[in-house]
């Protein structure tokens, strides 16, 4: 487990840093129409990027599993299952973001995935592992800090709508929800 600790710490750090920026932006647009438009633009853009990525990967699970394994973070079995499931997860979460059904869950999934990607890229660069990122299936580029920056941009797209959701509840723009979409207590309506 110990070798994974720096990896987990990196992932968490990436998430926290990005959330700080997203929360700041969301706080300042919480009551404005701009915020609403921004949140929707973020969701649509993020979903589009990941649908594109999933399309490149879903046709060739071997190539994806191989490029995941090449990061030398997980054992072969985990890489294979991830290679099989990841494109499906990207599609499911993208549809959630677009449809609005469980969209917050979808945004959390993307934020977590992107944070893991950032940590994976970072450790590959630091360890000097020369590999293709495997980001979009065959259309891949070698790992670089540019890719980390790109993922940071994407993670902001995932976190902005979430942060906006939090701020609107906190500032009283939206009715406070005690439960999830499906289990809202009667008293709150």
């Amino acid at each position: 487990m110990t070798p994974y600790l720096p990896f987990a710490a990196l992932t968490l750090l990436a998430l926290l840093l990005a959330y700080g920026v997203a929360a700041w932006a969301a706080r300042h647009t919480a009551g404005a129409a701009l915020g609403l438009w921004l949140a929707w633009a973020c969701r649509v853009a993020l979903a589009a990027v990941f649908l594109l990525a999933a399309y490149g990967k879903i046709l060739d699970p071997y190539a994806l599993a191989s490029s995941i394994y090449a990061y030398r973070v997980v054992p072969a079995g985990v890489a294979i299952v991830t290679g099989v499931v990841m494109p499906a997860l990207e599609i499911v979460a993208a549809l959630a973001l677009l449809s609005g059904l469980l969209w917050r869950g979808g945004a959390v999934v993307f934020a977590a995935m992107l944070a893991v990607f950032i940590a994976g890229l970072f450790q590959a660069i630091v360890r000097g592992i020369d590999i293709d990122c495997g980001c979009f299936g065959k259309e891949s580029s070698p790992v670089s800090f540019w890719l980390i920056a790109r993922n940071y941009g994407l993670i902001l797209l995932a976190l902005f709508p979430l942060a906006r959701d939090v701020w609107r509840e906190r500032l009283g723009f939206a009715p406070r929800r005690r439960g999830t979409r499906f289990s809202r207590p009667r008293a709150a309506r």
Partner: protein
Amino acid sequence: MRWLGHRLVEASALVLLALVLGLTLNAVRREPLPYDLPASLLLTQSGARVVFTGEARRLFDDAHFVFVDAREEHEFLEAHIEGSLSLPPARFDELYPELRLWTAGQPLLVYGESGNILAADDLARQLLAAGEELVVILAGGLDAWRSHGHPVDGGPEGLLGAEGSAAPAPRSAEPADRAGGEEEEQ
């Protein structure tokens, strides 16, 4: 914290859905990715990708790929994939020029005896280093090919550098003929 908890529940639901979807999709795929694939096949030393028997059969039928046998000559004489050429990695430098004359830049499929792809991987590495653009390795090697009932041949046809080998090679004149023809073109 409560907010985060709800979001994590939603995210878990999506992950669960994706898990079911992904595993189902892999199960109904024409050639499902095996979950117990060894690491050496998942990421080869040479960087060449691995193909499975079904895909290899399609490549065989397309006749665009040239199949290259990475085993020893005497093994090749006993049995090999129909139409393949023999190129043991130990004699690479000596036999590769002759292979070039046969293949003329076509993509190559390399195979060994079994699931142990050490020899095939070594050959693939040398081929890629020599400038071949597309080299793939057959997972499971000749054993898997044979167990699926795909065409296997025996004998010296396809043996490169036949003069040097101990076995008689009646068709060794043919590559030489083609070699002459190729040289004229150049």
